[in-house]
């Protein structure tokens, strides 16, 4: 699967021109210079800006304030709430995407009639723009005449009243989470499907001959053989969920009273609404460090797990 090899490959090649001279640099120059200017340089710039009280308007001075923006963050209840919301979103969406994605992949791994169609239907939300699906879910979850409330209240009678999904903090986070799971399941499904098709039939057949039932065979044969894919999907979903932005930004705008801010929506508001670039950069940099830290720990954990199995 291309997915894991992208990160794992280090430069190598069967046969290369040895006396390359300046030729490779000509091939590299346009793309790599653009990349340095617009991606690498801004990384350092983001760190630099976070040490300043940044003057946004022409002529207004920027003053160096050291770690002040980071100290400010530690004492900012909205930052902690935004971080908590992003963490809750992660805890809600990552396991559900893995479970549902894997379940659908298991159902589709055999060549059954209609497999291509089902695969496509599950994948359509993945390719649809976040803006469109966020607006759509805002509409479906609206309080007085929304589709979801109609189903729960008038049709199934599960709720005695119409629920104000996007009016308060936790129902809003649940709604944003439901959207995240709904949109993301197709992605993990396809990755798992590719991995499952690589599991040799002989393994599961051998387990069946040894008397293992379907559950037993799933947990002791199938799951261990897709272990690498499982860790890849988990790491990717964790990174993606901590970076949640567009859905929260469009569905609640962080409101009411900044109750539903996630880290990036708070960063966006600080930077482009209050024009506080210094604080915004500190928020962005903090999130990046958290994401890198968690990814690093996960990679160590999963690698440990893999070697343990090999031994």
């Amino acid at each position: 699967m291309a997915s894991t090899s992208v990160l794992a490959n280090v430069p190598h090649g069967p046969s290369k021109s040895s006396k390359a001279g300046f030729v490779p640099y000509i091939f590299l120059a346009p793309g790599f210079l653009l990349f340095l200017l617009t991606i690498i340089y801004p990384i350092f710039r983001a760190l630099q800006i976070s040490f300043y009280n940044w003057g946004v308007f022409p002529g207004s001075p920027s003053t160096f304030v050291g770690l002040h923006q980071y100290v400010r963050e530690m004492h900012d209840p909205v930052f902690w709430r935004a971080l908590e919301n992003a963490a809750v979103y992660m805890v809600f969406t990552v396991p559900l995407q893995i479970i549902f994605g894997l379940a659908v992949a298991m159902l589709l791994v055999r060549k059954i009639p209609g497999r291509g169609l089902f695969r496509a239907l599950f994948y359509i939300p993945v390719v649809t723009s976040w803006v469109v699906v966020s607006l759509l879910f805002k509409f479906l979850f609206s309080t007085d005449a929304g589709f979801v409330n109609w189903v729960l209240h008038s049709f199934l009678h599960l709720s005695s009243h119409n629920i104000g999904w996007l009016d308060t903090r936790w129902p809003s986070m649940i709604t944003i989470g439901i959207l995240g799971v709904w949109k993301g399941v197709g992605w993990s499904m396809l990755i798992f499907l590719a991995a499952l098709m690589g599991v040799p039939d002989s393994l599961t057949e051998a387990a069946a001959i040894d008397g293992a039932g379907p559950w037993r065979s799933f947990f002791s044969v199938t799951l261990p053989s897709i272990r690498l894919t499982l860790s890849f999907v988990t790491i990717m979903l964790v990174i993606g969920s901590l970076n949640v932005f567009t859905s929260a930004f469009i569905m609640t705008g962080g409101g009411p009273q900044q109750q539903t801010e996630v880290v990036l929506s708070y960063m966006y508001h600080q930077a482009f609404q209050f024009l506080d670039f210094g604080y915004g950069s500190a928020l962005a940099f903090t999130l990046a460090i958290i994401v890198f830290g968690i990814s690093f720990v996960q990679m160590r954990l999963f690698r440990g797990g893999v070697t343990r199995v090999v031994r």
Partner: protein
Amino acid sequence: MIVGSKKRQITFRVLRYVTLIVGAAIMIIPFLYLFATSFKPQLYLFEIPPQFIPKHPTLSNYTDAWTSNSFGHYFANSVFVSVISTVFAALLSAMMAYAFARFNFKGQNIMFWLLLVGLMVPGMMLLIPQYLLANQLHLINSLIGLILFYVATNLAFNTFLLRGFFEEIPWELEEAMIMDGAGAFRRFWRLILPLSRPALATVGIFTFLACWDEYVWALTIINDPDKRTLPIAISVFQGQHLTNWGLVFAASTIAIVPVIVVFALFQRQFIRGLSADALKG
């Protein structure tokens, strides 16, 4: 015994399909409702019970969007930005991938790791410095500003994907061209690119969709209504005081139909390039 297991197989099969159909319905019903709503006059948007087949279907949302809300113009902006970005992102990353796949050169490892960093950094983290950069380059409120940064953000992933593909192309083919006196650029243009059509298609589709759906960067640098792309235009329709959901969903339908068509036509290329989605967050 055999009869029993056969019965069990049928039960499994039925259960499998029921589960799949329920799942697929959950995925698709929101889109059907969106589509239905786009044909309803404003008066009937919030019907109880909800109607999936409008009783008084109308095309007025579509004509409204297209004419009085200059949606055609935004559509053209989106096509322009996405197409140009895709072409340049594919070409520049193919050139880089060729250098990585076929040459040994000084700084190769450092450049490779820098690209990897670019692949892992969450895009929004760079929003503020990129905004300042765009401001310095006078690219605020400019479609070129969108294109430049869309090309840049797609370079790293495309380069990795294409490098892997180029390395699979037998070196002997290039050697034969070298015998005929062909330089590196000829080989790249006449041999590598034509042979890599499937990989280029994957890269192209992913880049195009990423640009077509991009929201945050456009939201940040575009204020001039004349320069809006589709995602911005749609979100602005919703932001108006009394939301005309019919209009929002007519616009959304216009924006997502090309995506679904492209997806249906190129499913295989999609699956090959999967990890792009996750890496772009």
